[in-house]
């Protein structure tokens, strides 16, 4: 029998990315973590320990993973009206360009989500209300809650008409695959990605044109006033994917953890404040974003190795989140874990812009599910997973119950 100890680092990484292992890549991460800093033959470094990931996320000698490094992001070189080359969204940009774009977004976004909790409660209530029944039944937590909630939120923020939410959400799903390591993608998938990108761009152009005719005090109009056309498109596309696909997975992964740990679900039902540490534990235990890429801007000595300037690093956040040096009993879901220094949102300059919003959505969703579902049970364990390795989460999450109360 072949065990993980027999596999090379490259093989372990391949296994972790395989669709067949999507429900549980953690044993492969664990073995990679045991081996420490690993350099693959193609020059990529796999970083799996908490301490090293934390340090590299905040190291000034570490830059973002830029578009030329991956075919998934390849395309013709575009230029801003002033002739400077377009560098992509702020997800893949470095300071100072990153900072300027990010600041523009945060200045407009954060005030608009500051007092959103009550509204999020209303949205969750409304989504579950359509399924209220006094009899045994079944819901798909992905399709019925995890997916529509963040889509509605981002659509409301951007002023996307309610009737377009389904189309808009569909773009996000199709584009998400583009974030995966390129070797896991087929030619056809790459083509499909390019098509989705063009379709979204076309949709966004229409939305922008409409908003230009009908100015309001919304996020989109605000962004239109401070960003050029290329930056505007890149930012909107980023907000759509990052502000949505990640939260879908957070809610679905957390619901899955609760279904597998009925005692935790029962505690949450009794004590809604448990949602606060519980969401952090979901982010640690089964993070929506499994890994992120970076590149070395200078030689970096770390843990006895030197990452040469120019090399690419894959920081496997999900692996660092289960590092026993930082987390006691790391493979156990501990809903009230204290001092949870998880890496789910990254760190440093690229720390997730929408972290607060995602947290609030998840806290409210888990609390409502725990309160309103009587005797919830997982129909299929493990549930079917989507293809995506980076933004990882269940495709469907069927839950049966005795009652769904108001």
């Amino acid at each position, binding site marked *: 029998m072949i065990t993980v100890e027999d596999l090379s680092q490259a093989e372990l990484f391949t296994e972790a990315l395989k669709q067949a292992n999507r429900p549980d890549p953690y044993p492969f991460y664990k073995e990679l973590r045991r081996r420490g800093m690993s350099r693959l033959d193609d020059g990529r470094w796999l970083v799996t320990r908490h301490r090293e990931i934390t340090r590299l996320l905040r190291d000034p000698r570490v830059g973002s993973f830029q578009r030329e490094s991956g075919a998934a992001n390849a395309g013709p070189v575009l230029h801003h009206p002033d002739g400077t080359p377009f560098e992509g969204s702020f997800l893949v940009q470095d300071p100072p360009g990153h900072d300027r774009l990010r600041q523009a977004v*945060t*200045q*407009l*976004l*954060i005030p608009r989500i*500051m007092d959103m909790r009550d509204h999020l409660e209303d949205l969750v209530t409304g989504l579950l209300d359509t399924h209220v029944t006094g009899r045994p039944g079944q819901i798909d937590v992905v399709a019925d809650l995890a997916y529509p909630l963040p889509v509605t939120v981002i659509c409301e923020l951007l002023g996307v008409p309610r009737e377009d939410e389904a189309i808009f959400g569909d773009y996000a799903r199709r584009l998400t695959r583009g974030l995966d390591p390129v070797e896991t993608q087929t030619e056809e998938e790459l083509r499909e990605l390019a098509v989705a990108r063009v379709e979204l761009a076309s949709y966004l152009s229409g939305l922008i044109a409409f908003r230009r005719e009908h100015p309001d005090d919304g996020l989109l109009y605000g962004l239109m006033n401070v960003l050029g056309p290329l930056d505007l498109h890149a930012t909107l596309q980023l907000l759509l994917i990052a502000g949505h696909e990640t939260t879908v997975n957070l809610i679905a992964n957390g619901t899955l953890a609760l279904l597998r740990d009925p005692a935790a679900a029962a505690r949450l039902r009794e004590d809604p404040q448990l949602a606060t540490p519980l969401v952090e534990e979901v982010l640690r235990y089964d993070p929506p974003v499994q890994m992120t890429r970076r590149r070395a801007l200078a030689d970096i000595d770390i843990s006895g190795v030197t990452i040469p300037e120019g090399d690419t690093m894959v920081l496997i956040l999900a692996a660092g989140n289960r590092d026993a040096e930082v987390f006691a009993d790391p493979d156990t879901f501990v809903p009230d874990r204290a001092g*949870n220094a998880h890496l789910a949102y990254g760190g440093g300059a690229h*720390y997730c*812009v929408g*972290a607060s919003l995602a947290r609030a959505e998840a806290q409210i969703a888990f609390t409502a599910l725990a309160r309103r579902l009587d005797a919830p049970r997982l129909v299929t364990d493990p549930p079917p997973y989507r293809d995506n390795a980076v933004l990882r989460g269940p495709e469907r999450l069927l839950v049966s119950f005795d009652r769904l109360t108001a």
Partner: protein
Amino acid sequence: MPANSHFRATPKSSWDTWSGAMRRWRTRSPADTLRLVVDLNRCQSYGQCVFAAPAVFRFHGAEALEYDYAPGESARVQVERAAAACPVQAISIGTPPGREPGGPLR
């Protein structure tokens, strides 16, 4: 520019609200047992606490966090959310010194 400089753009009125909230808290109820502190060396101004507990935490300038050490019991849920959300675990919650929080000595 820094990631959190949006707080500069927030209307002055929200600042006034914050000060007003703190004025109200200056008269604390006897049940007031909440104290907190932020290690501002650890703090990297990610701003998660400001979102979680806007009446307790506030940016004054782009990166300069200010907060109320004794915001009153009514803020407890918000403060706990803020502490849990802090990416660098810089927020510690406790009790007024000299008033024992209970629990085991060891």
